[in-house]
């Protein structure tokens, strides 16, 4: 008796559970595809009979709404199964953590390209110079308070209102010092601007050397690049561009740089004046005392190369060791350079400034 009753009770409980679950279960032929990161559901099942949908308004709307309800139920069930927590303490709203979106959508803009290092950055890497974090406020002794390093109310007073300009030892006493300071500032600003533009041009050139985005007009290309790309496109046929018709404004003969030959020779009886000047120049170079090979430059280049190798080697070792890099100056380095300089000075006493190179 008891056993029967227990079975009946269990069966009744299961019935109740199934009843509850029925309200949220949906029967579908094919499973839906979900992308919860985008709150997206894709239903591959063929839609309900086209005839039914072609019919009158309200019936179609009802059918569409039923379909939408089923799909939304499935999507919401999946979303409620995600790990959820109460945001903002115990009383806050229930918040589910969404996974990363999986549906691949095209980007808005191409991914950023890393810009090549500037001349200073290359030098700093070579020498192992690190950036020092400067404090934004500096103690001003005169005003006895913390002031900005530069800008409005800077420490050290406004440079435009400086009323005293010392004449440095060895300068012309008639010279206007204020004018000199202004001129030097202008020159510094101009030099900085020039270097910045040079770095930009170098980055632009380096970026262009990679034909990674092949043959698509981006609107940021200039004439030279487009010409080069057009030339590449014309030559990329099976017969290497021999039978390609030309565009209306394209030049007839392709101005090839070498004319198909690797070495170029001047014609025998051509420009007599040019030939004469060339021969005279050759004789002049042969007879002059100044060597054609600039030894200073060559030695500096060699030293730079060695330093670069040493820095690269040390850099590898350092990254293995940790962040605490070299802080002290190595005495050996300056020894090398001064040694070279002393050597050069012995060779060319009248050579003038050698270290300036």
């Amino acid at each position, binding site marked *: 008796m008891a056993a029967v009753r227990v079975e009946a009770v269990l069966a009744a409980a299961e019935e109740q559970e199934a009843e509850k679950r029925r309200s949220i279960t949906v029967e579908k032929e094919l499973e839906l595809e979900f992308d919860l990161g985008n*709150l997206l*559901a894709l239903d591959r099942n063929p*839609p309900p009979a086209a005839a039914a949908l072609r019919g009158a308004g309200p019936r179609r709307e009802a059918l569409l*709404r039923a379909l939408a309800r089923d*799909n*939304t139920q499935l999507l*919401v069930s999946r979303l409620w199964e995600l790990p959820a927590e109460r945001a903002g303490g115990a009383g806050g709203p229930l918040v589910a953590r969404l996974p990363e979106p999986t549906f691949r959508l095209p980007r808005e803009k191409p991914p950023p390209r890393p810009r090549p290092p500037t001349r200073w950055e290359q030098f700093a890497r070579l020498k192992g110079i690190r950036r020092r974090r400067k404090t934004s406020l500096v103690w001003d002794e005169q005003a006895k308070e913390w002031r900005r390093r530069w800008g409005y109310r800077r420490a050290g007073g406004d440079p435009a209102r400086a009323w005293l300009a010392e004449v440095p030892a060895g300068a012309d006493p008639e010279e206007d010092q204020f004018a000199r300071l202004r001129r030097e500032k202008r020159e510094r600003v101009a030099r900085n601007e020039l270097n910045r533009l040079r770095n930009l041009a170098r980055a632009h050139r380096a970026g262009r050397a990679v034909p990674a985005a092949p043959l698509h007009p981006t609107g940021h290309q200039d004439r030279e690049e487009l010409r080069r790309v057009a030339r590449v496109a014309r030559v990329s046929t099976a017969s290497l561009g021999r039978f390609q018709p030309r565009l209306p404004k394209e030049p007839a003969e392709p101005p090839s740089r070498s004319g198909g030959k690797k070495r170029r020779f001047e014609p025998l009886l051509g420009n007599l004046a040019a030939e004469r000047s060339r021969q005279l120049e050759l004789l002049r170079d042969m007879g002059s005392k100044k060597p054609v090979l600039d030894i200073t430059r060559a030695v500096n280049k060699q030293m730079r190369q060695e330093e670069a190798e040493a820095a690269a080697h040390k850099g590898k070792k350092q990254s293995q060791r940790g962040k605490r890099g070299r802080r002290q100056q190595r005495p050996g380095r300056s020894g090398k350079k001064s040694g070279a300089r002393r050597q050069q000075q012995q060779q060319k006493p009248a050579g003038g400034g050698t270290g300036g190179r």
Partner: protein
Amino acid sequence: LICCYRKPKTKRAKRFLEKREPKLNENTKNAMLIRGGNANLTVTAVLKDIYAVKKPFAVLYKKKNITRPFEDQTSLEFFSKKSDCSLFLFGSHNKKRPNNLIIGRMFDYHVLDMIELGVEKFVSLKDVKNSKCPEGTKPMLIFAGDMFDVNEEYRRLKSLLIDFFRGPTVPSIRLAGLEYVLHFTAVDGKIYMRSYKVLLKKSGCKIPRIELEEMGPSLDLVMRRTHLASDDLYKLSLKQPKALKPKKKKNISHDVFGTTYGRIHMQKQDLSKLQTRKMKGLKKRPAEKLAEDGGTTPKKSKSA
């Protein structure tokens, strides 16, 4: 390039430019809604409703712009560059193509894909007298119908619509705030777009039962012309930089049953000095220890 050599002179200008430059994790895409030369009331109403749906991430141009996107794309690209929008919806009307909508997206300020749709029936937000959901709600998107997978043009349209209505990408979402759903059905050459407000009703268990209430714009669309990007350009636009790929954790593996295994790499151990259980009987006698140490006495004598 002017943008390169002219530096911004104020911090505000610098922030403005930084917002627009290409980034690893991109901003949410903005949409521009443009009226064509002869846009009629229907098309204007459609644009207004879609602007309401996409509110903070859309720009609605009030004036009419006399252009033809399929013939000349330069004016669209100019607008996109000025307002930093990569999605657009252009509405126009003429005898040959009544109630025309051109939906499209840009890559690097150039047109990537454009699909022309005709609006056959339109029910606006104002016509449906029900309660609406708050502005800026992230909608749930559902696509029904096998056409969206079989046909290449429909597949691109699906991708375009997801891109358009997706909204910002969020790490977590409030479960009670799932109020808005956009349902697209592709049947018989037509695409039915319906928007519903979601009501969560009590069911016996944790997961609520869904009831839908019609709300918001509903459109019956027909596909007309398309201008899809070539395969390699599309692939180029899909490319994600490597830095965004999730870093794989090494030395961790899973087996079929869900157990996680880890690998630890240890140095070589000297097994003779291994510490095992203490057994009193095996303890070294003082005499043996002495012999090992090489004659030094444990007690050192104090030297004077």
